[in-house]
């Protein structure tokens, strides 16, 4: 019985994923290739401009790889959060199909953003490695670990944002400013090691993405980066956020109204 429902869920999420891909990227011109191309069309020009404006090295770290490893996780966070605004409301009609749950709708959307982002990481890395502006990560498993926690963080926030946006329209309005502010404080532009010690301890706890960025950068540049992270802290915090998000999604069913 349990296996059966798991199989149904897998089927439903698969179908939702395909539906998302078609409805977002369409069939014409690039079609599915947009999954990769879309994040790249954002990332490449931005990285290009920055690399012209900034010094090639900052505190001993090469600028382009540093920005590259900052920008793609930032996009993941912003895209997942943005896609989850009112996501239940716009798909409420699908809930008439009893096997489709709100959780499935969430997973379908989040999965597409994650896949799209990871493909952009792979493609841009391949490009940058080839033209020589990026070196192969010194500690690949650390890089993966950091990215994994970054995905978890983005998904947990997306879940909470999605759940709250069904309750009040305020969330939709403040998401833009939040996501800009996030850019400044997320750890995109800095390592926690560069912060004064007292601020650092506070920042690492208050903005957990800084820990994820530290891990990603240590994975990329090796031990020249002194990453500050606590996997237990992150795991507990993100689990709690995920559970809270799931509770919000459950609750959201009480707030949706469809014709």
């Amino acid at each position, binding site marked *: 019985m349990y296996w059966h429902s798991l199989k*149904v869920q897998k*089927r*439903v999420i*698969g*179908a939702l994923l*395909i*539906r998302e891909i*078609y*409805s977002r990227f*369409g069939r014409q011109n690039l079609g599915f290739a947009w999954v990769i191309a879309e994040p790249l069309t954002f990332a490449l020009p931005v990285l290009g401009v920055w690399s012209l404006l900034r010094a090639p090295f900052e505190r001993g770290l090469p600028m382009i790889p540093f920005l590259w490893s900052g920008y793609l996780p930032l996009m993941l966070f912003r895209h997942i959060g943005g896609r989850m605004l009112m996501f239940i409301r716009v798909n*409420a*009609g*699908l*809930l*008439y*199909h*009893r*096997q*489709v749950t709100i959780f499935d709708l969430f997973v379908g959307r989040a999965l597409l953003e994650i896949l799209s982002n990871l493909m952009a990481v792979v493609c841009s890395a391949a490009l940058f490695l080839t033209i020589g502006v990026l070196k192969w990560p010194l500690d690949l498993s650390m890089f993966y670990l950091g990215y994994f926690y970054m995905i978890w963080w983005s998904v947990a926030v997306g879940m909470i944002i999605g759940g709250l946006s069904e309750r009040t329209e305020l969330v939709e309005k403040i998401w833009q400013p939040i996501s800009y502010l996030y850019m400044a404080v997320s750890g995109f532009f800095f390592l926690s090691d560069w912060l004064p010690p007292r601020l650092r301890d506070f920042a690492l706890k208050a903005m957990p993405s800084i820990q994820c960025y530290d891990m990603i950068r240590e994975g990329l540049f090796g031990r020249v980066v002194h990453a500050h992270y606590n996997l237990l802290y992150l795991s507990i915090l993100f689990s709690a956020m995920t559970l809270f998000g799931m509770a919000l999604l459950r609750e959201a*069913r*009480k707030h*949706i*109204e*469809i*014709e």
Partner: protein
Amino acid sequence: MIKVTGLSKEYRTEEGRSHLVLSNISFTVRRGEKIAVLGRNGAGKSTLIRLLGRVELPTRGTIEQTMSLSWPLGFTGGFQGSLTGNDNIRFIARIYGKPIDELKAFVEDFAELGKFLSEPVKTYSAGMRARFAFALSLAVDFDCYLIDEVIAVGDQRFQRRSHEELFEKRADRSLILASHDPGIIESYCTSALVLHRGRGKVFSDLDLALEIYNDL
């Protein structure tokens, strides 16, 4: 069987007051039974449909279900307009675990949309969309069909075929039919749930039900 017990639904208004849309509704739909849901606008019919469809959760009460219940027949809200008819068929086939070809063949034959099936659903006229939705609902087999008003879609030929599919070929299935139209109810239903201001009562005497409904 679908057994509804003590179903209530409360909404909060903008000012924070609560508004009881359904109050303590109970009824049972057995296999093959065809029940009408009668009620004036605002009596709670649509809310009941949404609760039965499990789109919304009841404030109180339970819905026990041992037979499969369709989504509202002809409901078009679940379509993604930018997807083609075929895409939507594939999606439904996937989530219900049905063979795609089988569903496609049925919809092609029944909705008679021809090459429009490979066009985005948003380009369909209202009539085409309704025909498409109706065909797709029938293509997936259910024990009980949920019908909210829209029973007369399409032209006469389509209506005749719909009638044949729904009431002749699927005569052994159950129906929950919400409608204002006494004619439709008299010809298809065997009992009726009359809703008035959120309260509900089941009548096995259809004439009595209609009489009471007319007096409301």
